[in-house]
């Protein structure tokens, strides 16, 4: 083996090692409550300043959610929990398609909720969890004058890449539980494929409602 070849190999290995280190540093476990606070404040800060979003540019909010929020959600687990007792009956391919469609629907819904944000204040409730916990609930209160505060609970699990949300409970209403009945009814009527079709049709209809040409990318 020539020296240059050995050097090249060494350089290659070194570069690989660097990449691994960088990834590890990036994925360094941020405390779940700190994560929720950071992401919420960042995203809300962008929405509050963006005139396009406030005037109804849906695509721009969706892009924002995809960039900033999506990485912190575990959509496979969310879908599994929403599909519930029918999940084990789905094939791997069906599971993948279900997750993809459900993700699209949730991103869309989340974006709408975000676009409706005006001047509510947030109270981030400190989390009392032990370092060994792998399943926590992070609570955020949305305060508004003349109305009861709305609680948003993020059920989060510790994953290798960091904490991820697997359910959002708004004012005591769990998103995952709420979809469970709907999904179960669809599966009873049309099977897993029926549910996938229904979700896809719903997403297509919603996508059509986005005014054309408002995309920011």
């Amino acid at each position: 083996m020539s020296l240059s070849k050995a050097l090249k190999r060494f350089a290659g290995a070194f570069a690989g090692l660097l990449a691994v280190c960088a990834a590890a540093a990036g994925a360094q476990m941020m405390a779940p409550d700190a994560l929720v606070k950071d992401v919420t404040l960042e995203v809300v800060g962008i929405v509050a300043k963006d005139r396009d979003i406030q005037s109804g540019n849906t695509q721009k909010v969706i892009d924002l959610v995809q960039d900033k929020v999506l990485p912190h959600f575990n959509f496979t687990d969310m879908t599994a929990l929403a599909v519930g007792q029918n999940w084990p009956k789905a094939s791997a391919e069906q599971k993948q398609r279900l997750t993809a469609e459900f993700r699209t629907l949730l991103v869309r819904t989340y974006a709408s909720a975000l676009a409706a944000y005006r001047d509510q204040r947030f109270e981030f409730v400190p989390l009392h969890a032990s370092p060994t916990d792998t399943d926590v609930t992070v609570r955020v209160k949305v305060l508004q004058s003349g109305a009861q505060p709305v609680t948003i609970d993020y059920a989060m699990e510790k994953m290798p890449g960091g904490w991820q949300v697997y359910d959002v409970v708004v004012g005591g209403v769990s998103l995952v539980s709420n979809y469970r009945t709907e999904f179960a009814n669809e599966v009873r009527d049309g099977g897993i494929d029926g549910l996938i079709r229904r979700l896809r049709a719903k997403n297509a209809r919603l996508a059509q409602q986005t005014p054309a040409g408002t995309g920011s990318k």
Partner: protein
Amino acid sequence: MTAATARARHGSARRLLAVAALAALAGCATTGRDPADPFEGFNRSMYAFNESFDKAIGKPVATAYQDVVPSPARGWVRNFFSNVADLFIGVNNLLEGRPNSAVTSWARFAFNSSFGIFGFNDVASQMGLEKQHGDFGLTFGTWGAGTGPYLVWPLVGPSDVRDTVGTVFDWHFDPVSNHYPVAPRNAMILLRATSQRADLLGASRLLEEAALDKYAFQRDAYLQRRRSLIEGDHPSREKAPSSQAPAGAPHASSDASPQARFSSVYEPRTPANYQAVLAAERAK
């Protein structure tokens, strides 16, 4: 959604309730798929009626209100009616056995009525006195009354047997609808309904987008919401699954099959239960 509009129809709503109750009995034959919703057929037709009423009147009026009235003024209206309501929210807090909440509600009323200038400003919230939840339906629930079947009333919207009785009590003690003479009273009731519907414009759009079946989505959200308000929620304190499971629902236990762990009907959230299912799924 239409709950606000419904309160507006104090007198006529009672008559409607009576008619609807008869219709409900007549509709007993309708079988729902969900044990919590045996009158699904009747409920769906009421829901359809409410939807068309909202589409024709509720939503357009609320949207116009939002477009025409500047935001600060809408805030004053919201705060004013919220302040009036705090009086009986406090009474219910006391009946529920939550004296601290009752004191908070009445302190809110005192501060907002005075420093907040007749309640137009919610200064109490800025002082850290959070607005409390309270109505007769919640009070009866705290006393141990079950919900009974889910019910949808014309203009009132989602309810159940217990909350229907509660709502009648709420109306009876409502300071606004007990106000005479009639003309300004009606104007107030309509203004309150409009304000409340306008505040829900965002939420109803969300429901439109999120739900596959809006009726079922709203029903489950309503049942979950009322349940959480009665049980209270303590995010830092894990509740035993058995204390959360409704009567008749399968209890989550570690050795139950995945089928048993998921009920197709409403099932309260139990993280421990979730984790077991997820672990089983990952182990495959």
